[in-house]
Structure formats: C-alpha cells, structure tokens
C-alpha cells in the first residue's frame, strides 16, 4: 500500500523567512511519481511540481525548491524568502501507474503555512 505523511500540520513564519515543508512517502513500487500541490484559501488545487522515481535531481523554480531523496523516501519543499501570498495549505502526493496509465493521487494530510507580514 502507498502512503504519504506530512508531519507538520501547521507552520507559521514571518515574511522573508525560509521555510521547509516535509514529506515522507511509502511505496513498494519502483516506478512512481511525486507531486506538490498548493491550496490557497480560495480552495482550488494548484499544481506545483512533479518528480518521477528515477530522477533524484533537485529542482529550483524561483523561490521554490524541492529536495528528493530516495534513500530517506522524502520529497521536501522549501520556500525561500516567504511572502504573505504563500499562505496556503500545501499537499504532497504520490501516484503509482496502473496498467501503464497514470494512477490516482494519494495525498498527505497537508501542511497549513501561514506567512505573517
């Protein structure tokens, strides 16, 4: 069975601080995909990044960066110089292909990030 754990339920930081959101996953499959989604107070789910299990290269996109480590089954997300607009719930998710097709997303419990001015 697959599982995603986001141990941090809530994080509060002051604007311009760096913050890291932790994500640990479990799966016995060798091929899988990891994702981060952002859910702002308005409720929509916004795709941020996708990683496949064969690509452990870290990625940076502006103030966002992701650290994927298969050895610890972790896929952590760092926001540098946080801004008030970063306030949202962030979900880490895992997907395992079925019948050579993209599979369902298994979400973690989410981390609510509050960035105060």
């Amino acid at each position, binding site marked *: 069975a697959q599982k995603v754990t986001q141990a941090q339920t809530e994080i509060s930081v002051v604007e311009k601080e760096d913050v890291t959101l932790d994500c640990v996953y479990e799966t016995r499959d060798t091929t899988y*995909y990891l*994702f981060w*989604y952002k859910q702002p107070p308005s*409720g*929509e*789910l*916004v*795709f941020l990044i*996708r990683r*496949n299990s064969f690509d452990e290269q870290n990625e940076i996109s502006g103030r966002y960066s992701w650290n994927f480590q298969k050895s610890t089954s972790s896929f952590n997300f760092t926001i540098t110089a946080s801004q008030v607009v970063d306030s949202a719930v962030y*979900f880490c998710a895992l*997907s395992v*292909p*079925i*019948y*050579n*097709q*993209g*599979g*369902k*997303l*298994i*979400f*973690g*419990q*989410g981390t609510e990030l509050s960035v105060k001015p």
Partner: protein
Amino acid sequence: AAGVIQSPRHLIKEKRETATLKCYPIPRHDTVYWYQQGPGQDPQFLISFYEKMQSDKGSIPDRFSAQQFSDYHSELNMSSLELGDSALYFCASSANRALNQPQHFGDGTRLSIL
C-alpha cells in the same frame, strides 16, 4: 490556457435528494479523476476514467455513480444524499498517453447538505 471546468461551483441540497456534478477536462486530456475533500481533510480519490472506460475505483459510496461521455466530459451522480456528503468535490484531468503528465484540477464544486 484552458483549464478544467466544473459546474456548478456551489450546490445546496437536502438529505435524500440527488445531485449531479459536471466536469469538462482540458482539451485533449483523455483521463478524468474525481476526488472528495471533506472539511480540513486531504482530497480522497473516488473514481477515474480513461478513454471513457472506468480505470480505477476508490472509496466511492454505492450511492454515487459516474461516467465519461464521448466528448470526454464526466458527470458524478449522487443519490440519497447524506449530511456526510458535504464536501468539496474536485475533478482533475491529465493526458495519460505520456505518463509524466500531472493531474490538473478544476476549482471544485462545494456541496452542502442541509
């Protein structure tokens, strides 16, 4: 760019009524997923369709059914509604011919059962 369109955005029903939620995927996306997100919860997978055939099934109650039509839009039909069905229902679509495509979500339908 075109996104996933869900309708209605908000829906209020009473217990034991029925509801139909609609989803229009991104053009050329061949797979549709439905998720249910309760208050303060993470989204839970309900059901998915690939090329108009059911491809996977999750924790979807027997009172719910869904289908994908020839134009790729999908509908989630919910009957005998219960208070516990109050939630945000998301539809997502992806292009599964290339496995590395992510799921893109609609804005959701907020269903409230009175």
